[in-house]
């Protein structure tokens, strides 16, 4: 009898929790899918402006094509560089895997060279910007322990993410503020081993595109280097019907014209 009561109590308690609030794992999974897995596939043209401590700016312009293989884990990316001019025409593909290193190929058109890129460090700069590889293609949610904090703003979930393997990353933890309405992560703040805030990523603009809430402008700031990068996404389109073939050596050598408007 006692057992049944306990069981009922547990059921009622957890049932209530489901009704009112998602658990932290569900929130993180929804936010992750919102950021990286919307639609079957997608395209965006990213214009990235890097500003360094001296106020000098550099521009990166690239088209990103994306195909979801398995929601929440495996994806393919195709990246084509439009600017700067010295790397124009360079392209690379990523086969993102969960649980093992991604496969990456880089194509250097001047030499007609397809190189395989050893890239186990996902926390290195993406194309010389303040964004990291992991910011662009996503950090696997399994790599961190997640904790729901009592945030100051009731419109947001505030999640504290602590790496399970602290040795391979430069942060001790990071917090993410997620919009409760649409699960778009609006701000991420990274804290170093001494607990000091040193890096942030902010969504500056969110638009609904083909029914998908999409971040169209974002900013990454490196407080130590006093540099930042603002990325604006244009020509965003979901569910284009991209095929697997695009993400192969064939289209590295012969960029898929129809998806790469200048």
């Amino acid at each position: 009898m006692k057992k049944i009561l306990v069981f009922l109590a547990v059921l009622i308690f957890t049932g209530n929790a489901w009704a009112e609030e998602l658990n932290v794992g569900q929130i993180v999974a929804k936010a992750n899918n919102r950021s990286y897995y919307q639609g079957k596939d997608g395209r965006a043209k990213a214009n990235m402006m890097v500003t360094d401590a001296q106020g000098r700016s550099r521009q990166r312009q690239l088209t990103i094509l994306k195909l979801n293989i398995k929601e929440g884990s495996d994806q393919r990316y195709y990246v084509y560089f439009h600017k700067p001019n010295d790397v124009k025409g360079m392209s690379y593909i990523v086969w993102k895997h969960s649980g093992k290193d991604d496969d990456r190929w880089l194509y250097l058109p001047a030499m007609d060279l397809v190189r395989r890129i050893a890239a186990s460090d996902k926390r290195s700069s993406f194309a010389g910007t303040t964004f990291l590889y992991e910011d662009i293609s996503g950090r696997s949610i399994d790599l961190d322990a997640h904790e729901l904090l009592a945030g100051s703003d009731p419109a947001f979930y505030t999640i504290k993410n602590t790496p399970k393997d602290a040795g391979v990353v430069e942060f001790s933890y990071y917090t993410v503020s997620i919009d409760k309405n649409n699960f778009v992560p609006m701000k991420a703040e990274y804290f170093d081993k001494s607990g000091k805030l040193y890096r942030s990523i902010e969504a500056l603009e969110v638009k609904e595109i083909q029914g998908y809430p999409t971040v169209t402008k974002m900013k990454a700031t490196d407080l130590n280097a006093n540099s930042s990068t603002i990325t604006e996404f244009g020509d965003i389109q979901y569910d284009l019907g991209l095929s697997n073939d695009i993400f192969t050596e064939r289209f590295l050598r012969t960029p898929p014209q129809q998806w790469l408007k200048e």
Partner: protein
Amino acid sequence: MKRAFLIATAVIFLIVPPAQALELPQWHGFIEQDFGGRLNQDSLTKHKNYNLLEQRVQLKTRYAIPGENILSAWNGVFSYKGDFVLDEYFQTTGSYEVRELNLAFSPASFMDIKAGRQVLTWGTGDYLFINDLFPKDYVSFYIGRDDEYLKKPSDALRLSLYPEIVNIDFVLIPVFTPNTIPDGQRVSFFDSFEGGIAGLNSDRNAVKPAHQARNIQYALRLYRTFGSTEGAFYYYRGFDPSPRSYLDEANRQLFYERLDVYGASLRGPFLGGIGNAEMGYYRSSQDSQGDNRLIENSALKWLLGYEKDLGHDLKVGVQYLYEQKLNYSKYREALLSQDYYWDESRHLLTQRLTKLYKNQTVMLGLFNFWSPSNKEGYLRLSCAYDLTDQWKLTVGFNLPWGEDNLTDFGMMKENKNAFMRLRYSF
């Protein structure tokens, strides 16, 4: 070249009605100043204090064929890239090098064609080539031009097929383009006719294969992925791109012996990095028994490589190349007493180190060749700085060395240089 240009131009204008060609193609490229000073004087060559001094303007464009026509429907793209060079080393009035002039199109969903002048590369090596027999410019490599210039273009037809089972690349090269190798003008080298390191005094010449149907070269690659691992088979039928055989000793003539290469490669994730393995069997059909002292023997080449990302924008790579001449005893028996001769085998190790700084705007690069068997090596050091999105400054050193004068790098030891390139891209 002129003929290829005319044909390509004619094709474009015949197929594309001018009225539709309203969207003008975009032009990009760079202007560059190059200088390479010698670290030791070499009075054998044309200028004893430097081996590189030139200005270069590169212009390139890609033009998707517009309108309602068959080439447009086939996603036709016209590509052009050419360099105008003022080479002050030779004090020329200027030369023009067309690096790309081709038309690429896809007549079927499983087929791509690229016809015209193009740069061709395949294989898994890093600065080491077993199954890539496409022409290279080793003089550019030694004097400090950009890596781009290591590869020379070919006038070729490339047909690529993508059936389910395996991808196929078939390349047909009607006219032979040899490697550019040291000839003593700019870079001194070992000339067996001179019996030592030679410069301007070298008067040997290499005879190219005649323009004949039987001299058309073919290159084939079959490749596919198995999960994350790539496998490939290669076949090449043509000529040794460097002149290693003697045609007429009295007239100091070399030639490019016929060469068939059969090869294979694997590349994929390995021990937290990328591993690659490649082999090639070089069949010298004009000396299949190996007993002709004047013609290069058949050979086997093996390559193992490994590259790893150590984090913090630091990458390391190592390679091991082993080459073995076949029928070596027959070759040795055939030699005359005064002949210079090749060793039976060669071991070559390479090390690469690449480190990026300052948000990846500064790149420090080290590439070292070292052959313990030949007691020679070649250290390449470079530092490239992206001053802005337009300006890039590259400085570096080319440091070949060796105990002997006959070996690949040993013969280059008087050509050590420090180079500088300043490029403005647009």
